[in-house]
């Protein structure tokens, strides 16, 4: 069944895939971070908070606004950029180097990483392999775009 992006159901579907492939995530090690995802579309934004603990996505919720004090960092970008990333993942099984989070967010020109604390920002890179692998699980979902 198709899940729509952006939505809580999309992240919950990734969470279920992550649990099903836990051995791969165990090999990458603990992932302890809470971060935001902000998707802009036609002047509006949808905001999600993802809470990772040990080897799993412990919780995901949609919020009206992301409190920067309660997340390590937020990845934000237009729906078109997110869509391009997810479609690239779907085509290749994983994001290629032009479409992974590090590249898209590197100079803040496509995706942007915003944060209150540099320590929170650095967690993106401390857990990058797990975070990218999490989004790469989109390759196993049928995603439709709102």
């Amino acid at each position, binding site marked *: 069944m198709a899940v729509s992006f952006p939505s809580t159901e999309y992240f919950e579907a990734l969470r279920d895939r992550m649990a099903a492939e836990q051995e791969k995530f165990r090999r*990458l090690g*603990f992932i302890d971070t809470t971060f935001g995802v902000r998707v802009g579309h036609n002047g509006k934004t949808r905001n999600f908070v993802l809470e990772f603990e040990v080897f799993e996505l412990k919780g995901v919720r949609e919020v009206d606004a992301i409190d920067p004090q309660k997340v390590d960092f937020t990845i934000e970008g237009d729906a078109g950029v997110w869509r391009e990333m997810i479609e690239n993942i779907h085509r290749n099984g994983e994001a290629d*180097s032009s479409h992974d989070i*590090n590249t898209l967010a590197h100079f803040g020109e496509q995706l942007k990483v915003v944060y209150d*604390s*540099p320590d929170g920002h*650095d967690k993106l*890179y*401390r857990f990058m*392999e797990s975070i990218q692998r999490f989004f790469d699980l989109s390759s196993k979902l049928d995603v439709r775009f709102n």
Partner: protein
Amino acid sequence: MAFYADKDYTQDEASLEAANQVMQGNLSLHWYDANTEKIKGKPADLRRGLTYQDLDIGSYGYSSIPEHVRNSQSMVARGSEKWGKLPDMGYVINRKSEIWSDNVTSLYEEDKARRWTPAVDVPWIELDARPLPAELEAACAQLYTFLQECALVSLDFSSRWVSLVNQDFIEQKSWMCAQMLGWARLNEAFRKRALYGGAGLKRASVAAEQGLKEWLFADTFPQGSFSINLSLGGFVLAVCRQVAAFAPSRVDRALMGYAMQDTARQTAYGYGQLRYFLQHRPLEANAMQEYADETEHVMLALMGNPELLEPLIIIAGGGLEKDQVRNGRIAVSKFIRLVAREYFERIEAAGLEGRSRRSRIPALVDRIEVPA
């Protein structure tokens, strides 16, 4: 010999007789009722296993280490009973604020959980299937030559200090050993990448090495940690992100993906240590500002030296054609801005207020900027 034990144990009849009595079955059990706390450790989360955080209990816990460690100069494990003539190890770091960061134990556990193996986790053979053009491979060889210099000096920094840190800081010393192993792993990965590509190693960087030696031999641990863990760590992290973003091969992307995780942990410790130090020793902020005034020029020796800039330009541009070099220069100019911005963000958030206004770096970065 720098130290002689209090006696020659081969000549000590009392020691031999004590061993003989035990082996005859006359156990003394003088250790059995040691004057120590009885506790039972328990994992807070079975998925994580038993961590140092789980054992932060009572007299065994790191939370109870005081700012000044006054009565513990031997190699005794924290919490055990001290008796007899234990040797004075001559530790020179005996203040918690000089070394500690609140994230030490979590970084140590994270480091072990997220370890990787360059020999098998990098898909080396993809370079055989898709070899890089000669100029790109040469640029990679130069880049990874430079990165080895950074990794080796970082390894030396932890090893220079670890034996001087009071043994009560067990978790801290364990983290410093993990740092050494982490930098050794990065050096291994950088070296293997350079040599696997077939171009060999290239030239050392005089500017980088002169500057890094200045940082390595900082007079105090907080100063050196500010330079090596925070400044160099953050810089190498940015290089890893840059090369991953413009990765010429899947090998480079995979390697830099792992490397950015390792260097981000070093940076997180450097940030946490500077913050802890300044929170507990606010009067030291001026001295740290003056230290930065003197040594911050090394940032420019690192990010401005041709042995790094040129390979980064070729990698970001994709080659040596005029347009490629132009695109590469623009990308590297953005990289330099990113390094400088994040450097000041970290140290100002850690407590060195106004550093970016006081520093010479922003004006110098302006001078080497390439307009987009």
